């Protein structure tokens, strides 16, 4: 569970990016964080990744107070969070396989045959098994984002944070990526998608949290649609 309790983030130059934010995200939820530029979305992501520290309040994730977490504990914490960025952030000189394997190697404790099996099964899930030996430059934007997604989930994180994951993609590829995120959510992962694409968010029947000027201005819960089947429920298709 993620819980922001009266969280304020003030940068050294005085700008208040988040102002007394209260928000609770339960385990296994799928949440869109929406807002215009300067709404505080990016700061929220940075706080969740413990890239920035909160100024006031408390931020709890799975019983851990991020505000009081020691720097030496941060790497281990981040291994439990899968992160996906708008610009993919792949290693350009590594193949698709190596990019995904790298996240596993950082954690360690995996022998080479297990590593290969886990990476290939992850690439199968995101539909890139055939492109394991390609380099990022040889892939489309959607494929690169799928590699980033595979890398984000290979260590079996409990939460996936996607920061504008479809920002660089066309509508069709955006749908692909969002469908994959929904699929991850169905595997029990908590998924937080930060986006400013209103239309895209509305296509999926999920919770939408709206920020403006660092404050919470809306929290729309998904409508219950009994007619939707288990297979395609919530993926907007």
């Amino acid at each position, binding site marked *: 569970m993620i819980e922001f309790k009266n969280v304020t983030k003030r940068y050294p130059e005085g700008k208040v990016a988040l102002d007394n934010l209260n928000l609770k995200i339960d385990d296994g939820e799928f949440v869109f964080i929406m807002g215009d530029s300067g709404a505080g979305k990016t700061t929220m992501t940075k706080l969740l*990744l*413990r890239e920035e520290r909160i100024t006031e309040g408390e931020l709890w994730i799975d019983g851990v107070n991020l505000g009081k977490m020691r*720097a030496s504990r*941060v*790497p*281990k*914490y*981040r*291994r439990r969070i899968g*992160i996906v960025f708008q610009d993919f*952030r*792949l*290693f350009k000189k590594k193949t698709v396989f190596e990019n995904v394997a*790298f*996240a596993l*190697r*950082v*954690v*360690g404790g995996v022998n*080479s045959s297990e590593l290969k099996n886990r990476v290939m099964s992850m690439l199968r899930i995101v539909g890139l098994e055939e492109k394991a030996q390609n380099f990022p430059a040889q892939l489309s934007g959607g494929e690169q984002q799928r590699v980033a997604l595979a*890398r984000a989930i290979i*260590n079996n994180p409990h939460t996936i944070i996607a920061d504008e994951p479809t920002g660089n993609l066309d509508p069709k590829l955006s749908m692909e990526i969002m469908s994959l995120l929904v699929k991850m959510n169905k595997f029990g992962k908590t998924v937080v998608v930060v986006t400013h694409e209103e239309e895209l968010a509305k296509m999926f029947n999920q919770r939408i949290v709206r920020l403006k000027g660092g404050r919470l201005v809306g929290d729309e819960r998904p409508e219950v649609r009994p007619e939707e089947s288990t297979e395609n429920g919530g993926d907007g298709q």
Partner: protein
Amino acid sequence: MRRLIDALTQSVQGMARNGLVTFVSIFVLVSCLIFVGSFSLISKNIDYNLASITELNEIEVFLEYELDDAAAAEINAEIAALQNVASTTLVSKEEGLEQVKGDFPDYSSLFDNINAEDNPLSHKIIVIYEENDKVSDLDFAIKRIEGVRKVNSRLDIAASANSLQKGISLVFVWFTVLCSVVCMFVIINTIKLSVYSRREEITIMRYIGASRTYIAAPFVLEGMFIGICGALVAFLGERLIYSALMGFVSDKMGFVKLYAFSELAPELLIVFFGISLFCGIIGSLVSLGKYVEV
């Protein structure tokens, strides 16, 4: 093991990527180490030659003429018990006369008529002391002993030798510190370039959850590699220079004694590896700076 191989691979890739800068770093490191090494070898050899002038550590104490052997032995024991005294040798009037005869072998007949009662010499004590900088205290203490007539301590020469040795040591330390700082700056800049060219990768690593050690290891290894290469090349260079110097000294300055290179080699290797590894490791860690902050 796998992590070590990963780190080694990444450090080799980093050096290959910044090949020219790595080469320049090694070159500057070698130059600095050769300067430090040459100066330390010169300093060692000056010390060696100064130490051979044993007279500098000697005081001659002349006793009153009327003292007999027993009284002289008593004063000898008193002097031997003083601080900073390494050893004493009592030279009796008779032995002194024999020494004088030996100093003037062509005129020994002049001394033939001098018998024990006519001996114009007094008892003499030769004092060997330990530390030059405390010799004035010793000189003062000996002069206060009853029965001592005169003390020849050559304080001026001892003081000059002492200050020369101290001066050389001081310059050597400053020179070593200066060269180490230069080496460190060069290595810092080399690793900084390497870090800069891989800053995106480092950011990704941090987000994935790589520890500081995991991120820093390839860069520290890179710094160590530069250091080890620099130390080895500098050692070989120093050996060539020293051989040439020995040849020159034995030809033109036969009175100067030099250590054999093999006697100084272990110490030199330790100094070279110490300086270069220290600079390599510290330089790498400083270069990484905020990049490895979580």
